[in-house]
């Protein structure tokens, strides 16, 4: 799914990285635990999170995540936006809560990251 579509579905505002909206993601992961983000994301994935701190950007950098959606209307600080710019990461913010945001993307065909024990239906 194109990031532009993610933006549209979530009625999101792009905070930085407008120029990368043509990039595609294969899956999504909604989580506020950084160790789980590191352990589970293994492909081009958009991260949805309610955390807006520098560690989210650093965690994303470690595993080459280039798209982050902040939920519940969370707005990243100037420092976080700058960190994302330097790493070519797109940041968006949506007013939806995590559950609703994930549900909306899933409904439109964006699957979650594969985990052990998943029923693979695609």
């Amino acid at each position, binding site marked *: 799914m194109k990031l532009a579509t993610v933006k549209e579905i979530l009625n999101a505002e792009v905070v930085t990285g407008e120029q990368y909206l043509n990039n595609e993601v294969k899956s999504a992961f909604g989580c506020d635990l*950084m160790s789980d983000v590191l352990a589970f994301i293994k492909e081009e994935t958009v991260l949805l999170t309610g955390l807006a*701190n520098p560690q989210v950007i650093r965690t994303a950098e470690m595993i080459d995540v280039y798209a982050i959606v902040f939920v519940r209307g969370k707005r990243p600080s100037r420092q976080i936006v700058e960190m994302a710019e330097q790493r070519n990461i797109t940041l968006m913010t949506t007013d939806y809560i995590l559950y609703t945001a994930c549900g909306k993307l899933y409904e439109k065909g964006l699957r979650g990251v594969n985990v052990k024990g998943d029923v693979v239906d695609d």
Partner: protein
Amino acid sequence: MTNKSNAINLEFNVMKDDFSRAGEASSKIKKILTQLGIVSSVTRRVAIATYEAEMNIAIHSLGGKIEVTINPNEIIIIAVDNGPGIEDVKLAMQEGYSTATNKIRELGFGAGMGLPNMKKCSDEFDIVSKKGKGTKVFMRISLDSKPV
């Protein structure tokens, strides 16, 4: 950065509680590995291992350092700190075990998955800790190891 007999040695200090900078060492290490053309699946392992180690030093210890040695066939990571050490290492290694405070949890840490993640990313893993002394984590990642 020193270079002796085909090995590259990197060393980074990690400060206690410095959350705006925590992760910088791992970020630099990842950039260097990418510049050296290390295969991305290995860089990923090293990035996760060093980042978890760096965050543990920043969160749980009094401060320490991360040493990375890049050899022609493997990468060695040593994370060592100045205390307070871990009472029960076996317990600390269990998935989900964490002593992180609420403040740390609000930052997104404290799932109790860091040490297990480090172990999963390593071809060889060892942790020694002495209460009152400090903790040392040894990780070896072979350059031909499979993606995790």
